[in-house]
């Protein structure tokens, strides 16, 4: 068990080190996220923006597009110079590779959210002070499920010229329950002032658990250099 955690930490550390030194993905993703927020802010107009209700939708659009870009980039790094073949030859379980990639993606998405969320909050006047931890909890639940599905499909959809649009096409429909559950919970939390919990949180956690386990199992079969 200790060894597995060590291996996962090693793989994640490698990914994040590559990212920290090149700063390729994060720069791209953050700017894209801010652009999406600005475009939606302009498109919705001043009246809609003032309501703050649109912020959750705006945030999800930014997270979804930014997230897909993260998944693509972290997997593309491995396809350079046959790095994936080397990784597969290493004496580690394939599930460990999945876990490493999953955590790297999650870290990138959290970094994206840390920049984009304040921007959206400022631009849309969305008041988070009522329940900042509830907001963070719901979003974290959404991110785990989204990254679980995204990491799996980034590995499956590879070596294809149309990779960009394709990954989004695959991941978006599957992630819709996350968007539905989290927006409904946000409504309950901020409009009705109800605490986080109950059925909504159960759906998020079920999504996370199911897709982490399924991805861990399926990843072994689909990984090809």
């Amino acid at each position, binding site marked *: 068990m200790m060894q597995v955690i060590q291996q996962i930490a090693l793989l994640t550390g490698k990914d994040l080190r590559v990212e920290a030194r090149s700063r390729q993905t994060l720069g791209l993703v953050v700017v894209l996220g801010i652009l999406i927020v600005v475009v939606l802010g302009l498109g919705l107009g001043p009246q809609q923006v003032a309501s703050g209700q649109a912020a959750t939708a705006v945030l999800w659009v930014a997270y979804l597009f930014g997230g897909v870009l993260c998944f693509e980039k972290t997997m593309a790094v491995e396809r350079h110079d046959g790095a994936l073949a080397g990784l597969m030859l290493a004496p580690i379980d394939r599930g460990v590779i999945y876990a490493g990639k999953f955590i790297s993606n999650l870290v990138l998405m959290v970094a994206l959210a840390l920049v984009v969320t304040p921007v959206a909050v400022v631009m849309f006047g969305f008041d988070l002070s009522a329940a900042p931890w509830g907001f963070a909890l719901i979003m974290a639940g959404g991110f785990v499920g989204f990254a679980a*599905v995204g990491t*799996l*499909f980034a590995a*499956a*959809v*590879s*070596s*294809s*010229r*149309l990779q960009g*649009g*394709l990954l989004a*096409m*695959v991941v*978006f*429909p*599957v992630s*819709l*329950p*996350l968007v*539905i*559950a989290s927006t*409904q*919970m946000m409504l309950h939390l901020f409009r009705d002032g109800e605490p986080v919990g109950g*059925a*909504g949180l*159960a*759906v998020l956690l*079920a*999504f996370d658990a*199911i*897709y982490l386990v*399924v991805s861990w199992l*399926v990843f072994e*079969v*689909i990984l090809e250099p």
Partner: protein
Amino acid sequence: MTKLKKTLMTGYWLVTLALFAFAIAVVFAWTPIEATMGPVQKIFYLHLPIAINTFLACLVTFIASVGYLWQRRQFWDDLAVSSAKVAVLLCSIVLLTGMIWGHSAWGRWWTWSPRLTFSLVLWLLYVAYLVIRPSIESRERRALVSAVYGIVAFLDVPLVYLSVKLMPDIHPTSIQLAPEMKLTLLLCFVSVTLLTVGLIAARYRLHRIESAVGAGLDLPTPTKVPITQPGDAA
């Protein structure tokens, strides 16, 4: 295809279509008109059986996808895509009949009620399955991505169902049915199920031929391929 198989197929389709026509006739001529909704309620006899059969088609795609990942045999992929196509067709009909019904019941073509949202997400899931396939050139890669997607999409269905339950609802949850109505519903269900199975089988045969041609394999009746293929595709 052997002569016996051909006769069986023709017989199957004749029985299915006759039963379907009979069911439609029963719906319009024999079943009583519902008190509150009026004649529009008759769309229900098509709506519910097709909705159930959509799930059956999705289930077949799921099983075939698991089969492909397990055995890596092309016929599993052919079966998965055949039933996914039928699932999309059926789900489109469910959405359309539901919208017609909703328009006369609530006065609006679309509301974001849980079950409408559920059908829409289900439809999107399987439409995405069909549109991503042509973008992947390699046959093995296409089958692999489709199989993973087929599994993930099916596991998504209960989650979508649970998540839409968080939304406010106006859909009828249970309907009181007269005995004639129940009998009609059963008849419609049987004929629609036969139709679904027939459609999946027909699609599957076509995809088998397509992948055999694509792989350059020998068919059971190789001489017939160039002659029947353009006709089948059209």
